[in-house]
């Protein structure tokens, strides 16, 4: 699920979490030799404490967050966090401990603490941990970026954000604008008793805005958010996205919403733009195909899955047009990296093939539970202080064989609705019943867009929805959506993930009017 923003006033007042450094004061990640020394100390201490397996992650997290509102720069925040976590298996039981004091002494203490925790829990562990085999790697991997956002000066970022306000506020009726940029850098050093030493640097970038049009007379207001997505790439995404053009269009659409036709409830043909469909994929395909959910590991929080293990390889999940892959190697993907937090090399694998459910997302300690010999590399921890567990890779709908355009699909539709952008979203804890809204809605009649609609949400059931998919657009319509806040686990952890998809059409979907 995607976490709702928590109610923490101070976060807003304070500027939310984020961080950046100008290049000249960049805190260098310690050189590998030093990290290797620290990591090896942890592994040795863990072994001495009785661990049959151990790994350490020594991680630094940098964020930058710039928030502007109504022509003012409200906050610029750089955050930095540094620490390590040691994970051990003692007598078949996991133990984990972590600290922000990165010294050899503290590492030895924390390794002992992790072993102690494993021993304490041995009495309540009925399933000794078994790890799928893994190769060992001595390597580095970095997100390929053209422009590292942390090396970029602040001024062009501020200028661009404030320019968005000007463009939007040129539109009569546009009342309020907020615009922000967020940049993330995860610097990760992983070492394990399997012999791996892996250094990675991941970068993610996210520009966005929201425009609100208030009509004081009627007391009504509508907002239109940008259709940008967070991406596993550099500042080049910010520069290549037509933010200013879209700000103008978004303002016009927010204003037009006041006079738009209210959506009519009933069964409709839906044409879902990738800026909307990515979130539906996340919730209805990404989550139910997580093996830990299917096995009950998440029963107390995120929930279980209707895709139980008996359905593997047989269940007709969607129409034959529907193929979805898990892929942590996908270009610009938020979950893209070289190696997961188990030290497994990442790869692409089919999850739904020609409509049939064929595989789960897996980790080293759970692959054997469905008879698999290797992990798909889906282990991730969101911080040095967090325990790695199964997290979603980029899960993407493959484009159709024929390169159908958005226009082709609209042209083939007599009576339907086109939905763009992600809005409200909610799905049950086994991932059957869902309800999604969007940013803008467009009536389609006789192969043409006729008018803008408002107050629409669609409600369906996962297999029914995917079986109703009757047109999948071509490669030229394929784009990535994504989120920083894919939430799961206790304590809660956030996973950054992307979902690519083409424009796609779904027949007879239940549409609601959410207005008053």
């Amino acid at each position, binding site marked *: 699920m995607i976490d709702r923003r928590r109610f923490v006033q101070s976060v807003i007042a304070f500027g939310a979490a984020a961080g950046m450094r100008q290049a000249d004061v960049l805190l260098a990640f310690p050189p590998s030799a030093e990290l290797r020394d620290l990591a090896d100390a942890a592994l040795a201490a863990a072994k001495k404490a009785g661990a049959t397996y151990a790994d350490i992650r020594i991680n630094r997290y940098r964020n930058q967050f710039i928030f502007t509102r109504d022509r003012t720069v409200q906050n610029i*925040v750089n955050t930095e966090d540094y620490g390590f976590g040691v994970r051990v298996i003692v007598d078949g039981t996991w133990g984990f401990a972590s*600290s922000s004091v990165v010294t050899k002494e503290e590492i030895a203490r924390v390794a002992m603490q992790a072993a102690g925790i494993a021993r304490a*829990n041995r009495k309540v562990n009925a399933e000794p941990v078994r790890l799928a085999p893994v190769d060992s790697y001595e390597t580095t991997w970095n997100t390929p970026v053209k422009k590292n956002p942390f090396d970029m000066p602040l001024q062009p970022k501020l200028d661009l954000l404030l320019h968005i306000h000007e463009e939007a506020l040129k539109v009569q009726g546009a009342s309020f604008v907020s615009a922000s940029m967020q940049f993330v850098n995860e610097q990760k050093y992983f070492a394990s008793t399997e012999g791996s030493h892996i250094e990675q640097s991941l970068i993610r970038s996210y520009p966005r805005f929201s425009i609100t049009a208030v009509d*004081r007379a009627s007391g009504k207001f509508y907002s239109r958010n940008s259709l940008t997505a967070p991406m596993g790439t550099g500042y080049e995404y910010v520069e290549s996205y037509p933010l200013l053009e879209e700000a103008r269009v978004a303002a016009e659409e927010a204003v037009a919403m006041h006079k738009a036709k209210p959506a009519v409830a009933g069964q409709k043909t839906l044409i879902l733009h990738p800026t909307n469909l990515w979130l539906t994929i996340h919730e209805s395909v990404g989550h139910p195909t997580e093996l830990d959910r299917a096995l*009950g590991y998440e029963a107390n929080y995120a929930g279980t899955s209707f895709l139980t293990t008996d359905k593997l390889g047989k269940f007709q999940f969607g129409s034959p047009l529907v193929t979805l892959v898990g892929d942590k190697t996908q270009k610009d993907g938020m979950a893209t990296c070289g190696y997961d937090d188990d030290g497994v090399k990442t790869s692409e694998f089919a999850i739904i093939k020609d409509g049939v459910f064929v595989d789960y997302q897996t980790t080293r300690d759970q692959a054997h539970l469905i008879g698999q010999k290797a992990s798909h590399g889906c282990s991730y921890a969101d911080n040095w202080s967090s325990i790695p567990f199964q997290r979603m890779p980029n899960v993407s709908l493959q484009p159709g064989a024929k390169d159908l355009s958005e226009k082709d699909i609209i042209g083939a539709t007599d009576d339907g609705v086109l939905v763009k952008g992600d809005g409200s979203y*909610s799905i049950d804890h086994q991932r059957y*019943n869902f309800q999604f809204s969007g940013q803008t809605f467009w009536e389609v009649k006789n192969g043409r867009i006729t008018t803008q609609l408002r107050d629409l949400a669609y409600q369906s059931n996962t297999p029914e929805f995917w079986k109703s998919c009757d047109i999948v657009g071509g490669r030229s319509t394929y784009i990535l959506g994504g989120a920083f806040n894919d939430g799961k686990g206790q304590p809660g952890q956030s996973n950054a993930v992307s979902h690519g998809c083409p424009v796609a059409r779904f027949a007879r979907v239940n549409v609601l009017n959410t207005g008053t």
Partner: protein
Amino acid sequence: MIWTREQAKRLTDKALSISKADETFVALNGGERANVRFARNTATTSGASSGYNLAITAAFGKRSGTVTTAEFDDASLQRAARNAEEIAKLSPENPEAMPAIGPQTFAPVKAFFEDAATASPDWRATSVATAIELSKQKEVVSAGFVETAAQIQAVANSKGLFGFDQYTAADYNLTARTPDGSGSGWASKSFNELRQLDPAKLAASAIEKAAMSKSPAAIEPGKYTVVLEPAAVADLLAYFIFSADARQADEGRSFFSKKGGGNRIGAQVLGEKVRIYSDPAHPLAPSVAFDGEGLPIGRNIWVENGVMKDLLYSRFWAQKQGKAPTAGPSNIIMDGGAATMADLIAGTDRGILVTRFWYIRSLDPQTILLTGLTRDGLFLIEKGKVTRPLKNMRWNDSPVVALNNIDAMTPAERTVSGEGIGGSGLALVCPAARIREFTFSSASEAV
């Protein structure tokens, strides 16, 4: 042991002393926490973490920049301070920037309890063993989570402000499911004090509910009288308060906006029985006495007899509107009534008993229309008795409507909502309630 007041002050003093900005504000947060997860009637992962983070905000006039660091040696602090100053100088003036506040007086709080701060790995493992043993005896499969935490928060600035609080939390929650997957029950509690947490009682409650909810039947969606357990009321309460920002209201983009301009302070927005307030000294939800900006959090009434008494004012918006800024809040309390849970059920001719909600999201901020689902125990009430388990449903409704339609309540209790709100970050106290005409919009097969 977590940091003491003296340790925190030493660091904040040092950070302030190296700053070259006109005004500097620092905030220190962190502490220790440890947890165990279990699922499939066995422990799965467990961990402990210790860590602190310092945020430094440097300001030159109306320009400011913030940098956080987790490393507190001289060189790291110098780097962080210089970086914050550099950002501040590069930043354009923010006309909404507020000057630093001076020293404040904070009411003493008792949110820290030694027993939670010193809970051992063995205590946590034993609390898990209790649930697993009971689950095996009753032939259900349980998953759950126990966590104990001791945390600090400190703020200081160059005008002499200093605040320091310690607080603890002990959380326990679990979901019990029948082996055939047709029944599920849940229980969750969070307290500042470990001795108030009763894992065996929570386990028994979740397990009993799993058995009761086995093999549910569907019911037609529509409007029903509902008896909401406190965990379900808590989410409606939290979402109502989350929407109560004064600026949004005054700008015409909130339920709390008045048509034509202004806001709805003074208007009857909820039923007359409803009173909602915050108070860090509340005995059921002791919580920190100052917020992230260093403003003292006092007792503040949001709703009295259903009338909106206040909204959340930031320092800037408060100054602009001639109001007092709203600190925090660190807890939300909704008063209850005198009925028992049995009374609420007995007084229902036909209705639905709801254990908790799940995956609540906003659909329309103009009316605070929300959508969400029921989970882990939904039951039909007929002629004052719980008669059978029901399949889960999606609901589309507004807390404004629901909190207007309350006709009876139990006394308020410390509550964790179905969405997990109610721990140490924002403690919640609320009752169970019987509510008329709650709208369910579709069926869900999920158990």
